[in-house]
């Protein structure tokens, strides 16, 4: 059992410091996690969404290029088709690099498969040097449905990442709450701590001082010992004992015959 009031005070204030430190560390950790989550959303989901949007855009342009080719603007149509194909392939590579969700590889493989089939049917038309009527018929019969199917697979990838992004935002919201909680609870605990400390200071500091003051005020030599009513074994008890020693010495000195 610790007897010294000085050590008791130092230890209790250290406890308060530790408590606040723990709260600060926890808050910092949660804020860091929150930052990581935001970064994760931007790096992973947002990049995949961007890639899917690029694919969608390029896919539509490729289809427009094919239609241009069919209506007779063959050179510009072919150029658009080739440019769009490069964009789609690059976007697919970006999406492959950013696989973060369980279902993402399946979606990317579906897009690759669908696009390969669609692009093959486009090439079949433009490299086959078909007549406009033949090309239109082939487009209606085969290419159109492949285009829509590919578009759907790209859309599925987009939806998956958007959903994940939404879920991530909820997680971030939860994390921000968790980051604030330690600070809030520490605040409550610190107030409680302060109240307790005040109570103990009143009991173990002010009360003994008051008791000692009263006992000194009411003291007269015939009483013998000074009784401050200190029950603890701390510095106040030592002070009471030292006061009694002083009184004893003074009384002894008074009783000695003068030279």
């Amino acid at each position: 059992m610790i007897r010294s009031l000085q050590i008791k005070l130092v230890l209790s204030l250290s406890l308060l410091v530790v408590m606040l430190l723990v709260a600060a560390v926890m808050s910092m950790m949660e804020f860091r996690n929150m930052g990581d989550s935001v970064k994760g959303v931007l790096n992973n989901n947002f990049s995949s969404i961007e890639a899917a949007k690029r694919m969608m855009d390029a896919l539509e342009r490729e289809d427009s290029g094919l239609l241009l080719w069919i209506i007779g603007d063959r050179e510009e149509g072919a150029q658009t088709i080739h440019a769009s194909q490069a964009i789609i392939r690059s976007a697919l590579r970006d999406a492959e690099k950013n696989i973060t969700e369980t279902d993402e590889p399946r979606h990317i493989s579906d897009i690759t498969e669908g696009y390969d089939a669609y692009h093959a049917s486009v090439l079949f038309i433009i490299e086959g040097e078909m007549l406009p009527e033949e090309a239109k018929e082939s487009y209606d019969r085969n290419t159109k449905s492949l285009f829509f199917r590919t578009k759907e697979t790209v859309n599925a990838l987009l939806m998956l990442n958007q959903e994940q992004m939404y879920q991530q935002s909820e997680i971030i919201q939860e994390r921000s709450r968790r980051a604030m909680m330690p600070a809030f609870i520490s605040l409550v605990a610190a107030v409680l701590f302060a109240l307790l400390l005040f109570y103990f200071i009143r009991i173990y500091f002010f009360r003994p001082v008051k008791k000692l003051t009263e006992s000194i005020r009411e003291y007269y030599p015939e009483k013998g010992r000074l009784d401050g009513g200190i029950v603890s074994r701390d510095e106040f008890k030592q002070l009471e004992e030292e006061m009694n020693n002083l009184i004893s010495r003074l009384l002894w000195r008074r009783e000695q015959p003068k030279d």
Partner: protein
Amino acid sequence: MVRNRVIIKYLGYILLFNALFLFISALISLFQRESSLNALLFSAAMCAALGTFPYLFVEKVEELRFHEGLAISVLGWLLTCIVGMMPYYIWGGEFTFTNAFFESVSGFTTTGASILTDVEALPKGLLFWRSATSFIGGVGIILFVLLVLPEKKGVQSSFYRAEVSDLSKMSFRTRSRHIVRIIATVYFTLIIVETILLKFLGMSFFDAVCHSFSTVATAGFSTKNLSIAAYDNVWIEVVVMFFMVLSSIHFGQVYATMTGKKTNIFSSRPTRMYLLVMIIGIVLISIQLSNEAFFNFGESLRYASFQVISLATTTGLVTADSSVWPIFSIVLLCYFTIQCGMVGSTAGGIKFDRIYLFVHSVHKQLKLILHPNGIYALKMDKRIIEYELELQIMVFIILYIFTFFVTTILLTAMGIDGTTAFTASIATIGNVGPGFGEVGSMGNYSSLPNVAKYLLSANMLLGRLEIMNIFALFMMAGRK
């Protein structure tokens, strides 16, 4: 004169004790790399810091006055429930401030009523803490503290007087300082044996430990959304039922049975009656369920046994949705929710012994009407019940009924339907957990308004502290 600093010191010990279990839960979260780690660790640190503080200042006490013991007992439960909600609230999810408080009170009072719609979404660390609250609440936080602290005899007996009911003390045929050891021996033995058996029957070790805590504490928290029904294993149900029954019987009698003494479970008339009433209930419900083609007789017996034992022992684990059962079965189950287990066990509620004594007291009064000059003594297991204790039992039963009646009225005033209001009241004051209606065995308390949740939390605490202690503390505070 009550010494506040002494009360604060022992409340500090209670905080330290909670910190220990929070720390164990944090370790589980750490190993599982879960999101609840920070919440648990932070709560443990807060409890440890606040608990150590009074220990530094307040000197060792030689003896504890009765009023101090009473204040520590009641305030200790309240404080425990408040700190117990901390990890839930910090972690978030379904835990709003009210929900976290409700779940914490429900755990510590071993009620097992939950606000969670998806228990399985909780991290394992939090699931363990949830079960640990039941484990701590099972024998009471004060008795746990007594087990750990090498306190003076004067301190121990004061705590013991405040925490254990007179009726319960009567059935322990030993000195008070040995009683804590007996309770602990029975409690830990039951938990260890049940864990081994459940693990052997195919549960994961984690689930086995959590369900053993829940069963032996007669709490009812499960790690599965479907409770014990999730395992669909008859042998697991049999083991759980066996331990629910044992945990609802006076631990002194269980200890006597374990050590081969004469004053065991089978020699006690109230215990035999308690078991008989349960058997009658099981048979009646089984017959009705099979007659009304809910299940075949075998299945009816299986589900009826589990539900009756679970509610009668105040555990609240489930294997079937009894809310859809015929009205007679529901009424019988409501009776068991009111009757509850036996004194000296981990069960809550009125307790069967009190009902047994009430019936005998009524019989005694009738005989006194017929023979006014006759001298009749109220007896339980060949021991005469003093008139003060008899009166205390009557007052307790009246207060108990009055409390759940008032709660029912208040709940219906909040717009809650009659069945839900009535069964939620009796299920929370009896520390049973599931009721009927919205709060049925496959439902939960999440849909109730926040005020209702606080009211039911107060009910759980009143039930756990056996009403009188809380009123006595209020009276003490009023006088001061």
